[in-house]
């Protein structure tokens, strides 16, 4: 995995903790170095600080997303809600606010990795013009393949397993992100937006992934 963090203390202690947890860790100190390292050595997961000198974390995230659906976990030092949402919209799978607990970081990293490699039921699900193949992590829309991140795929899969059922944000947080206790429901909202942008004909008027006001989301079978 790759840890991108400009502060030496945080970078070292984070790498130390992750190595102790059994990961092989590369580090980068800024955005440019991160992209170089990523291109030279594609990894399974990236832990990315938002505030980086030069090319910031958001740009790095966007750049990586152009070619890869690798799980990305953002570390945010900013307090603004807006930055969290922007980070998620750039394609990050999850985020952690500083200061964070090392065990929590390890748990989140494991969680995004599990999503990316979960051995789920292999039977293909067909719903609303979508063909979801959990075995090969492929979603086809009208025969063409749609590139989804692991998180988006998992979200779609959970919804598609019980079409028509209303999922609360909390339930989705638990199912998809493994957030055990009152996570941030905006995580769900932003992921749903991103998913709609990829699978809906008209993302502004979603036909498939419907919002149920005051409750949550459901996959419409109609």
């Amino acid at each position, binding site marked *: 995995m790759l840890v991108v963090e400009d502060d030496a203390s945080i970078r070292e202690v984070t790498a130390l903790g992750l190595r102790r947890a059994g990961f092989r860790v590369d580090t980068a100190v800024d955005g440019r170095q991160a992209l170089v390292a990523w291109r030279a050595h594609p990894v399974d997961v990236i832990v990315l600080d938002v505030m980086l000198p030069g090319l910031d974390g958001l740009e790095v995230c966007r750049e990586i997303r152009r070619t890869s659906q690798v799980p990305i976990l953002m570390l945010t030092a900013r307090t603004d809600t807006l930055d969290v949402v922007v980070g998620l919209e750039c394609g990050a799978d999850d985020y952690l606010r500083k*200061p964070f*607990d090392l065990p929590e970081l390890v748990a989140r990293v494991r969680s995004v990795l599990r999503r990316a490699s979960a051995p789920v039921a292999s039977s293909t699900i067909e719903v609303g013009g979508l063909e979801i193949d959990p075995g090969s992590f492929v979603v086809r829309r009208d025969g063409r393949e749609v590139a989804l991140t692991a998180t988006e795929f998992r979200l779609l899969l959970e919804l598609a397993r019980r079409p028509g059922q209303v999922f609360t944000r909390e339930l989705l947080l638990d199912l998809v992100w493994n957030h055990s206790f009152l996570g941030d429901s905006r995580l769900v909202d932003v992921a749903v937006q991103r998913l709609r942008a990829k699978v809906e004909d008209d993302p502004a008027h979603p036909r498939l992934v419907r919002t149920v006001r*005051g*409750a949550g989301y459901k996959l419409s079978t109609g």
Partner: protein
Amino acid sequence: MAGRAVAPGRLRRRLTIAFVLVAGVSAGLLAGGTGLLLRQSWLDASLHQAAADARYQLVLAGQFLPLTEQRGTDLLTSFEGSGRHVVLVDGPTRPSHPAYAPTLGGRLRATVAEGQLGYQRSAPGTRPRLLVVGGRIPGSTAELYVITEEDGIAADVDQLRNALLAGWVLVVLLAAGVGHALARRTLEPVGRASRAARALTEGLLATRLPVRGRDEFSDWAASFNEMAEALESKIAALSAAQARERRFTADVAHELRTPVTALVAAASLLREHLDQLPDDARPAARLLVGDVVRLRRLVEDLMEISRLDTGRERPSIELVDTSALLHRIVAARGWSARVVISGEAVALRTDPRRLERVLANLVTNAVEHGGGEIRATVAGVGPLVVVEVTDQGPGIPAEHLPRLFDRFYKVDPARSASGSGLGLAIAREHAALLGGVLSVRSDPGAGTRFRLELPAHGPDGPPGGVPRPAGHVDVDTTSPTGGAG
């Protein structure tokens, strides 16, 4: 609002009435005096003329001397023929015309009897009004009274009175109009000033009064403007200072975050290996790990309160199950054995993350500073959802309650608590953002109860929200018999 007990416009009415009274009384006196004087002078002139005429007629009457029955008749006929009504008294009283035969008064007769010219006027109101001037015909004992009609004068006097009355009414009306306008113009600056003062009260600090002319009001307006100016600059300075202070807090919190992050991560590595440390290093390492936890909490609370200060985040409202939230809060901290949660299922629309912050801070506060069994109850009371967190600890002395929600306020400064001193301040700010009220009651010796009231339909929900200003903090103490549980 006691200052506004006098209804607007009352002073104006009073001024107008005073103006009308002064104008009415003076115009009335003037008109009355003029009328009386004119009437008197008309009557005097009439009398003079009549007296002169009577003297002449008495001389003429001398031609009919000596008076016999026949000559008396001739005299009467002659006078009547010249257009004068007379009364001849020569023994019997003989009027020249039966319609003009006034009773000759005793005083008149007495005056005439003394050889002088005398007169009498008929009583006011009688018609025709007659002026009788009489005297003795020279060289005889006979008396002749010449009668003049004064109806013309009476009519003139009536007309004059009517004219004066009409004039007076006109003057009074004019005075009322002018007085009203004057009072209005005079009092207008007062009204303007009170409107300006009200605008200042409502926070429109740029409010100023126009300074026109050079009278007392313009002086007043100038001083008012100076006051507003001073107020505005003082408030601007205060809010600038407050903004600086808040920015400083935010900066401090922000700058602390990076080293604290590294510390927290390092401490959690250290914690896992406490057992492998040499015996003499272990206590220090344990202290270090514990203090890093405290430092982290302080920094996070500081960041939260500075986020609340900027007020940029709007609550995101959802339907929340308050009891379930309480259960999760307690379970996440491993306090299920210490905290008893009870209550009904009530629908509450609010921001779950903010509600979680309020409830978690109240429960944490009860566990860390209270004691005994801690109860958390949820109830629907009308349009409100009420959450109460009660402990059976030592309670809080009454003098501390008003400042309990202040930042960094500690009931016992000597007691080194694990809290940051910001928890209750944060809880209050979140409660206010949710349109709610956070209050506290405490019985020293029996425990403390925090009460959170939230509008069930959310901060901007339909009518029936908390009928008090948001963010208001109630503080009261109960009597020792009041009970806290």
